């Protein structure tokens, strides 16, 4: 049963609407070119020395592509893992802890990677 008000709000039974689904697809679309660019960058660095790798990662275009890739990929994987958790972890307490750990893991990886990238570009 749907009241007119709930229809207007459009949030459905989960009370959160389609925002999650939409963000998942948006980041998926963005990930395709970004991941291909990532692969090209990594392949071009195979077997290179420290100076050559720093030189490549300090290139503004390369740095911005990696930064954009990190944001899109980490967002995508955080909400993807949340779906996995919600599918398999049924106890309410453990689910809340797992979803929190998921967000913290994603932020930790993102912050370390972005810190390293900024240091390579501005702080060496």
């Amino acid at each position: 049963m749907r009241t007119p008000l709930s229809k207007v709000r459009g949030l459905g039974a989960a009370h959160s609407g389609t925002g999650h689904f939409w963000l998942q697809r948006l980041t998926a679309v963005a990930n395709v070119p970004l991941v291909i660019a990532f692969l090209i960058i990594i392949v071009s660095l195979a077997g290179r020395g420290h100076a050559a790798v720093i030189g490549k990662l300090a290139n503004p275009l390369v740095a911005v592509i990696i930064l954009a890739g990190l944001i899109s990929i980490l967002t995508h994987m955080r909400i993807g893992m949340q779906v996995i958790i919600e599918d398999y972890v049924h106890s309410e307490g453990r689910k809340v802890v797992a979803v929190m750990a998921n967000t913290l893991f994603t932020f930790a990886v993102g912050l370390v990677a972005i810190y390293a990238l900024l240091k390579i570009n501005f702080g060496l």
Partner: protein
Amino acid sequence: MAETKIQRPLSPHLSIYRLTPTMVMSIVHRITGAALYFGTLLLAWWLLSVAGPAGQFEFANSFFASWFGQFVLFGYTWALLHHMLGGIRHFIWDTGAGFEAHERQFLAIATLVGSVTLTIVVWLFAYFLRG
């Protein structure tokens, strides 16, 4: 809040269904997604090693150059490309196309063949362009 224990009938689960390519690809999509999730630790570690002193970079590099490191990177490349092609398959389905039985079958097989082929192509490039 106490959980009530009422015995309700359960719908049939995984074990009663015949394994189909679409089903296997769906499971593999989720497994590769989870593997890629934890693999981002390697990316963060590698970037940190590049930002660090030369010794740290050499240490990370020697791990990635070892047979185990190469094995992990090869698997990671495949997981990445497989998850990407699986995602493109979902984009096709999002448009409402590709739901006929033979189309689903084709897309499932194409995802697997495509990801293995692309992984080999990427690694051949890496070996030929190696510095």
